[in-house]
């Protein structure tokens, strides 16, 4: 096993992550603010940003739009599997990398399952514009978990062979109990977590429906956490079911109510995918992979992101009938009385 001299931490080192929490005001206080304020206050150039959700499920889309409007430089992005969230950030870099830039990604998967590959990922990766570090879904989930547990590393059994261990900072050691090889993954403690949830109270106690993805781990591993929620609800309602709380308030710094905040992705109980819009975004980026200029993508950003004040302005560009249809499609998936 190699020694630790060469280890570099992106985001916070384990000791820095501890220190950040020690110095944090962990009181139960009102954390509501505008999304603009939250992004301005809690994200900085050069940050390692942990992205919540999974592929196009409950991705923090509203937050990424606000980040694009704000502009950031040299971000490191970390997630397990993601689609739209990073697409929006990467697309901004493709449109104007003096306004927005990603330095590095630490990931397992960047694509869209049934909606195909990410042209943004292909464009940036194939041109060497971002540093890549490949892990697996469990690797990245376990790295966030280690970070959320206050551990410097966590062991896993996979993937133990192949080229992933040579693409990343995992270390293989012989287990001192069994003698067999085991992987040790360094913790991930992002500077800031961006997470969309179903419901939250003003203190930041969050309820997630459907898969938790790795959201609690990312929030609790990070030094700061921005939460958007479909519904801002009373503390009394949230705490009437303590076991449903997936992220507790001390891990949260900002709470913003943003209905449809994961759209055009899916948010369980609220809306299903808008595949047409995902394809519209991709079409605008895909031509750049073939060497065309950024015009089409710039037009998309001008229309949907730079041309509006807030995420509500993005939503207003969809016909109401489409938003209602996507609500209805999801209502079929988890039928319940209103």
């Amino acid at each position, binding site marked *: 096993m190699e020694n630790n001299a060469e280890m570099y931490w992106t985001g916070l080192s384990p000791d820095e992550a501890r220190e950040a929490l020690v110095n944090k005001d962990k009181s139960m206080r009102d954390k509501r603010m505008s999304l603009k304020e939250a992004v301005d206050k809690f994200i900085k150039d050069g940050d390692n940003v942990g992205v919540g959700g*999974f*592929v*196009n*499920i409950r991705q923090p889309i509203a937050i990424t739009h606000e980040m694009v409007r704000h502009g950031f430089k040299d971000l490191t992005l970390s997630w397990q*599997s993601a689609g739209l969230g990073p697409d929006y950030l990467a697309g901004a870099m493709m449109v104007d990398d003096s306004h927005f830039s990603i330095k590095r990604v630490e990931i*397992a*998967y*960047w*694509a869209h*399952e*049934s*909606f195909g*590959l*990410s042209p943004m*990922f*292909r464009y940036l*990766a*194939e041109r060497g514009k971002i540093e*890549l570090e*490949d892990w*697996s*879904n*469990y*690797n990245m*989930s*376990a790295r966030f978990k280690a970070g959320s547990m206050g551990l410097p590393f966590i062991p*896993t*059994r*996979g*993937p*133990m*062979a*192949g*080229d*992933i261990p*040579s*693409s990343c900072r995992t270390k*293989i050691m012989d*287990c001192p109990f069994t003698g*067999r*090889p*085991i*992987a040790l993954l360094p913790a991930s403690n992002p500077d800031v977590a961006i997470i969309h949830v179903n419901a939250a109270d003003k203190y930041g106690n969050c309820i997630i429906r*459907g*898969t*938790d*993805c*790795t*959201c*609690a*781990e990312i929030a609790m591993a990070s030094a700061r956490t921005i939460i958007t929620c479909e519904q801002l609800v009373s503390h009394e309602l949230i705490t009437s079911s303590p076991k449903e709380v997936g992220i507790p308030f001390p891990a949260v710094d900002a709470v913003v109510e943003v209905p449809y905040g994961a759209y055009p992705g*899916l948010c*369980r*109980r609220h809306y*299903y*995918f808008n595949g047409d819009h995902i394809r519209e975004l991709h079409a605008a980026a895909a031509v750049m992979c073939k060497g065309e200029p950024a015009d089409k993508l710039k037009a998309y950003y001008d229309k949907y992101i730079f041309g509006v004040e807030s995420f509500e302005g993005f939503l207003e560009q969809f016909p109401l009938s489409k938003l209602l249809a996507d609500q209805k499609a*999801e209502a*079929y*998936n*988890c039928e319940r009385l209103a």
Partner: protein
Amino acid sequence: MTASTDYTAQEIIVVAGAKILENNKIVFVGTGLPMVAALLAKRTHAPGLIPVFEAGAVGPPLEVGLPISVGDSKTITGACYAKGLNAAFEMTQRGFADFDFIGGAEVDMYGNLNSTMIGDFPGGYQTPKVRLPGSGGASDMAASCERTILIVPHDKRKFSEKLQYVTSPGHLDGSPNARFKAGMQGKGPYRVITTKGIFDFEEESKRMRLIHTFPGETVESIQANTGFELLVADNVSEFTAPTQEEVRMIREDIDPNGAFVKRA
């Protein structure tokens, strides 16, 4: 049980995949065609099949239809357990998955799989010729599920002597106990389903072995489209063409929107 005459390459893959899945077993289902195959199996010979999806859902009945993502809301409804990714992979690492079922872009004779990049590794890792999505959970499933079922479109350049990048470990270099020695669990690659046939792995050498040709293919035509030397089972046979009912189920009931099974 009339044989279909107009099934597509993806449809026969789905039917073959479904038939390999066993009733009452737990299968960790990767995204894409494996989801369609699992649903077909569940609605035909394997109603007790227990699908697990990496975003967290265990054992959903899938009565609300085909998920188009392994984190789709449709995987949660009626599930027996639904936490997040860590919980799903921890169960797998523990040994709760009898099978995993994954797809990839490039495979070698030992069932190692590439879904990361086309290009030169490690030299060209930071500037891949084609950047693929990456492992997702496939490498975790391949490392820790008990037996792996693979789907790879059959193409000479994709059935390679040496992979450009090994994302999901299979039988590694085929040496005895290679997986165990590397620290992994599970028996590794069990079946490969391609657009041309079905393969298992010979017990001793761990090399890919043709066991079924798809209609219209021969041992020779398949070898001709494979970039390494195939083993051929003594009793290699032709896989029965999908029935009209199977094809109808795929087209009308399971994937009516062509989310994964393309009509073309």
